[in-house]
């Protein structure tokens, strides 16, 4: 009898027709989804092409966005998007890290569970509700209590100069911060939880205080995960549409003041896309959407890679 060399991977071994049919269905649905995703980029680019052709690279360097003159440049939109997202990160990162530390390391179980639940509920609130709240509650609050104070005492700084309306960059940044805190903190929680207990005890046994232990064992050890979480939060803030649209004022412009109204790539789409009446206007909006898509792809890939790297590190 001859020796049969059986080299069978788990997927090839099935001789059953139904098995093959099933795996065919599963695989084609997977393939279809992947191709749908890539066709998204292609189709949007195709629709945006007239704008890129008309304006060339100046689409990204021109800050005028004017449908009367049919002149469209995305610089001010990019500026508004970046500034509002950075503002949100500035507030959300320390809060999220503190929250994750508190829930994982300090709080007793009952408190950790209930606060954790509240944070998850914050994540579940639809963007439109944040917008409504921002428009009718937060913006008036800022206008009446916060901004007069800032204007009076720090009005000399370019950040707090000019008239204030409540709605504007500051309100958008605050709302975004509230919205991305659950994202960043829940990822940070996962990262911190992955730090082995022995590492923490080893640091504590050197005679360090709790905070020093956090700094050395958790924050330094989980750095790549924390960066991943921050980048993901940035991506979230970047593409957030409804809440920002409702509170940012929707006025295209490059202003250094946080009081000024502004416009982001997402909010200009929400306000103008359905009403765009010329081909060039529609194409320019689509081009802004394409830019938004590509930039968010970049940031999200980056954060996914960071998070995958962190997961790999834990496993080994």
């Amino acid at each position, binding site marked *: *009898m001859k*020796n*049969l060399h*059986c080299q*069978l*991977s788990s997927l090839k*071994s099935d001789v*059953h027709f139904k*098995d093959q049919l099933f795996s065919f269905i599963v695989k084609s649905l997977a393939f279809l989804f992947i191709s749908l995703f890539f066709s998204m980029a292609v189709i949007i680019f195709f629709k945006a092409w007239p704008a890129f052709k008309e304006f060339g690279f100046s689409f990204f360097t021109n800050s005028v966005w004017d449908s009367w003159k049919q002149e469209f440049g995305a610089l001010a939109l990019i500026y508004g998007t970046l500034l509002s997202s950075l503002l949100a990160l500035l507030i959300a990162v320390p809060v999220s890290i503190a929250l994750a530390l508190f829930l994982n390391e300090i709080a007793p179980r009952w408190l950790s569970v209930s606060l954790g639940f509240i944070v998850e509920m914050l994540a579940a609130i639809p963007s439109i509700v944040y917008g409504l709240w921002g428009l009718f509650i937060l913006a008036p609050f800022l206008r009446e209590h916060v901004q007069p104070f800032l204007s009076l005492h720090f009005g000399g700084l370019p950040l707090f100069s000019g008239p204030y309306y409540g709605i504007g960059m500051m309100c958008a940044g605050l709302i975004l911060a509230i919205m991305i805190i659950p994202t960043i903190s829940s990822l940070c929680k996962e990262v911190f939880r992955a730090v082995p207990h022995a590492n923490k005890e080893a640091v504590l046994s050197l005679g360090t205080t709790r905070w020093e232990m956090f700094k050395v064992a958790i924050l330094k050890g989980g750095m790549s995960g924390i960066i991943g979480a921050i980048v993901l939060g940035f991506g979230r803030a970047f593409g957030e549409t409804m809440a920002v649209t409702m509170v940012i004022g929707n006025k295209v412009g490059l202003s250094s003041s946080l009081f000024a109204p502004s416009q982001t790539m997402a909010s200009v789409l929400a306000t103008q896309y359905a009403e765009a009446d010329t081909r060039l206007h529609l194409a320019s909006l689509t081009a802004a959407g394409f830019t938004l898509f590509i930039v968010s792809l970049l940031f999200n890939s980056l954060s996914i890679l960071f998070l995958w790297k962190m997961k790999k590190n834990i496993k080994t």
Partner: protein
Amino acid sequence: MSFKKGKMKQKTLIEVKALSAWFKKSQALSNINLLIEKNKVTAIIGPSGCGKSTFIRCLNRLHEEVEGAYLKGEVILEGKNIYDLGSDPVLIRRNIGMVFQKPNPFPGMSIYDNVAIGLKLSGIKKRSLLDERVERSLRNAALWKEVKDHLSRSGQSLSGGQQQRLCIARALAVNPSVMLMDEPTSALEPISTAWIEELIQKLKNQVTVVFVTHNMQQAARVSDRIAFFLNGELVEFNKTSWFFTKPKHSKSEDYITGRF
């Protein structure tokens, strides 16, 4: 290996010829030759990592379900090589029952359904026939008395020992000719272990049992034949009584006397 071959021939159920197995690049088994006799209990023993589990997983073609795993050689069950090209692992496995280390009733299924699922898939739909076979299997697995009044309860609601007997009943229901057990008592407490050992003794009238254990006393109590594996090789295959009294190999003796 050095049995009186001629006499054994008609009683041989499984013949393993030149079996070697790999995970990716590391070899788990090398050149195993073994005859498993009908209606006998064969125990596979050896230190952990010696390839015992891999060996019995080769007997029902579960080995190849692991990513990167492959093997070479023949396993002849009732005169037919299960690794023949064109033979269907799914059909082969229906003739070979398996019980795992951890009791694993299917999640979300009742006790009844756990036992009946193997029958249902082989096309038995008649309720009365299913009832009868489920009862018989549960009786054979010595579980019937405990569960007959709540067959619709979840399989996972049973205790660990009961769950393992349920898994035995599940495997018995389809009338396999071989029953493979991969350390079936290692997750159980002593009383349940005794139950399972007794059960294995009773089962050998109906099926041929091959079981893996790391417990030498258990092998001595339960088995008729012992195969001793070391580092992926079969060191000794012998009658149980002879293995413990007159081991042929010095390594076996070392293992029995605890020098590992």
